[in-house]
């Protein structure tokens, strides 16, 4: 009955089945909505955050999705500015994923701050020296860009497209997309960076503090690099997932390979810098604070193993996998590589947030532990529910994959 909305020449499952599929994700959303309501109504005492864990699971989620969402701007960059033709087949889904990640992150931040209604003070009373200000400005602006990029895709819906105004608008928008893409790239670079900067500048927190260039600590650049290294991998994963679920080939393999290759190279270079940075930190920052590297791991569950995982297991290994053509052409390895790549980046964000705050700085201070409440989980997971729904709807009603019809001819 919703067939009129479904793109021409492609096959979609029955509406009933589709609705059934959306149920669990709607469930997650409902859970999230309840949690959000409680946090806004009763305040953040609904969480398990404390004066020690001022940032918690939400921030980890924020940082992660924003890093992974980097696939959007980076693919846009490659497509519109470098002009990698093959990526045109995947740019739409990239934009959608980017949109999901960023809108989700912004929503979470809105709940995370104690006075959401005053959120706009960041802009109005901006303190330009704060990395967080930079983050907020760039993310908001970039979200606008993402919406602009998303609009033509929506307008391409069969029914909407019949409206000439929409059709024209969409087309015209599409024509100058390069301009927006370029702006987006600029903005993204900065907020990815300043997200890293947020931690690197905390000079009284030796675990996070880093030296740097001018006002930007090394983490600033590492975050950009790690984001664009993992973004494409995440994009590959998501698309492969969609393909798996729809049991269709939606994007030519070439696109995947290009992304994988790039992802691999970036990850490799990121790893080199990351290792250099870590050594510089161990022999520079930490001793200056009167500590030794191992002091950080004297108590609590967090140990050196975290760093080993982050750098070796989920850093170097996936880089190698993605760099070896034979390996990345093999589906299994490709997925593994991308998966490990993303895990590594998430781990990095986790360490920089949670572990930084968990490790006491004052010698007579004590290690405190933290576990999220169901409200915190609710809001975090809602992000996933939201994502799946948006992708599903877009996939069902929008021509997300230009090559789909051609790759899957509908048998009359």
């Amino acid at each position, binding site marked *: 009955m919703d067939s009129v909305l479904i793109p021409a020449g492609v096959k979609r499952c029955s509406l009933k089945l589709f609705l059934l599929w959306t149920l669990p994700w709607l469930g997650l959303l409902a859970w999230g909505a309840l949690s959000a309501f409680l946090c806004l109504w009763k305040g953040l005492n609904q969480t398990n955050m*404390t004066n020690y864990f001022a940032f918690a699971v939400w921030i980890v989620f924020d940082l992660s999705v924003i890093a992974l969402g980097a696939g959007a701007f980076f693919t846009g960059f490659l497509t519109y500015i470098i002009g990698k033709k093959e990526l045109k087949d995947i740019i739409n889904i990239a934009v959608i994923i980017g949109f999901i990640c960023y809108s989700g992150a912004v929503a979470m931040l809105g709940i995370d701050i*104690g006075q959401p209604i005053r959120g706009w003070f960041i802009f109005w009373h901006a303190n330009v020296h*704060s990395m967080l200000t930079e983050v907020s400005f760039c993310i908001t602006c970039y979200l606008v860009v993402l919406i602009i990029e998303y609009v033509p895709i929506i307008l391409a819906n069969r029914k909407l497209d019949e409206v000439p105004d929409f059709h024209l608008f969409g087309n015209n928008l599409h024509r100058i997309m390069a301009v927006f893409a370029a702006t987006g790239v600029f903005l993204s670079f900065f907020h990815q960076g300043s997200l890293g900067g947020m931690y690197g500048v905390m000079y*009284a*927190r030796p675990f996070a503090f880093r030296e740097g260039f001018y006002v930007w600590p090394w983490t600033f650049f590492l975050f950009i690099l790690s984001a664009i290294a993992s973004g494409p991998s995440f994009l590959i994963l998501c698309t492969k997932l969609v393909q798996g679920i729809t049991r269709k080939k939606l994007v030519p393999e070439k696109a995947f390979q290009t992304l994988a290759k790039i992802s691999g190279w970036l990850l490799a270079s990121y790893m080199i810098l990351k290792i250099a940075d870590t050594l510089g930190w161990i022999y520079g920052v930490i001793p200056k604070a*009167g500590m030794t590297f191992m002091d950080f791991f004297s108590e609590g569950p967090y140990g050196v193993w975290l760093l080993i995982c982050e750098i070796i297991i989920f850093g170097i290994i996936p880089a190698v996998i993605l760099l070896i053509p034979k390996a990345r052409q093999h589906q299994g390895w490709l997925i593994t590589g991308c998966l490990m790549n993303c895990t590594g980046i998430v781990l990095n964000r986790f360490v920089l947030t949670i572990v930084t705050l968990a490790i006491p700085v004052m010698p007579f201070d004590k290690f405190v532990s933290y576990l999220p409440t169901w409200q915190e989980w609710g809001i975090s997971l809602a992000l996933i529910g939201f994502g799946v729904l948006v992708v599903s709807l877009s996939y069902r009603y929008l021509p997300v994959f230009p090559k789909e019809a051609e790759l899957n001819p509908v048998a009359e």
Partner: protein
Amino acid sequence: MKKGHDQGKHKYGMVIDLDKCTGCGTCMVACAAENNVSVRPDESDKQRSIAWMLLYKIDNGKEFPDTETSYFPRPCMHCDDNPPCVSVCPATATKIDYNTGIVSQIYTRCIGCRYCIAACPYHARTFNWWDGYFPKGKGLDRYLSPEVSPRMRGVVEKCSFCHHRLMRAKDQAYAEGRKELKEGEYITACAEACPAQAISFGDLNNPGHKVSRLSKSPFAFRILEKLGTNPKVYYLSTKDWVRKMADNYLPGEFKPVSKASASADKKTTLQGG
């Protein structure tokens, strides 16, 4: 971009003599009472309770009967020059005034992002996880001082060196036609309340003031000095183990102050039990 403080006129600071400190907690109560800090029915959740001035209990880690405890009263350090919390606040809700050295917090401006809490290694900043606890009909709001505005849920608060007392003292001086404050005219509630006179408060820039003398004592030190936060709260202790507790030291890096201190430090306990 990084303004130094030295051009600043005054530089208010605190010196806490840990040999005199008895750990009685009057400073904490005085602070809470002076600054309308909310008290909740359960204050035992120390990670969430609000205390501008907080007592840390430390011990020398020895076994009975050689164990020895001491205390660190910890207000906001009012880090000088470039406090870790000030530069990170996105909404300019916290500032350092280079004419007094006081790091302020504007509650009505704070959006509650808690970045400053993450940036502060002293845990001097606390977040209002709840609205202040002043139930209707209980009457506890009757002792609230109009000089300090009660905070709303969702904002960060911290020690202000009793800034309103500075205002009070200035008004007084102005009424008496004076431009400058005399020593002792402006002191924090904790310094005034301390029954052992362990806390002194004054202008570190003024060589005449007790604090600037004490801060130059060989026994004077600050917490986490190495991080370069440059606190304006100094501590005095003749006990080396206490001084060693105040900062992180690489093996062999810590230097006992002097023979004098070493002997003063020696505490004998007679075996019992």
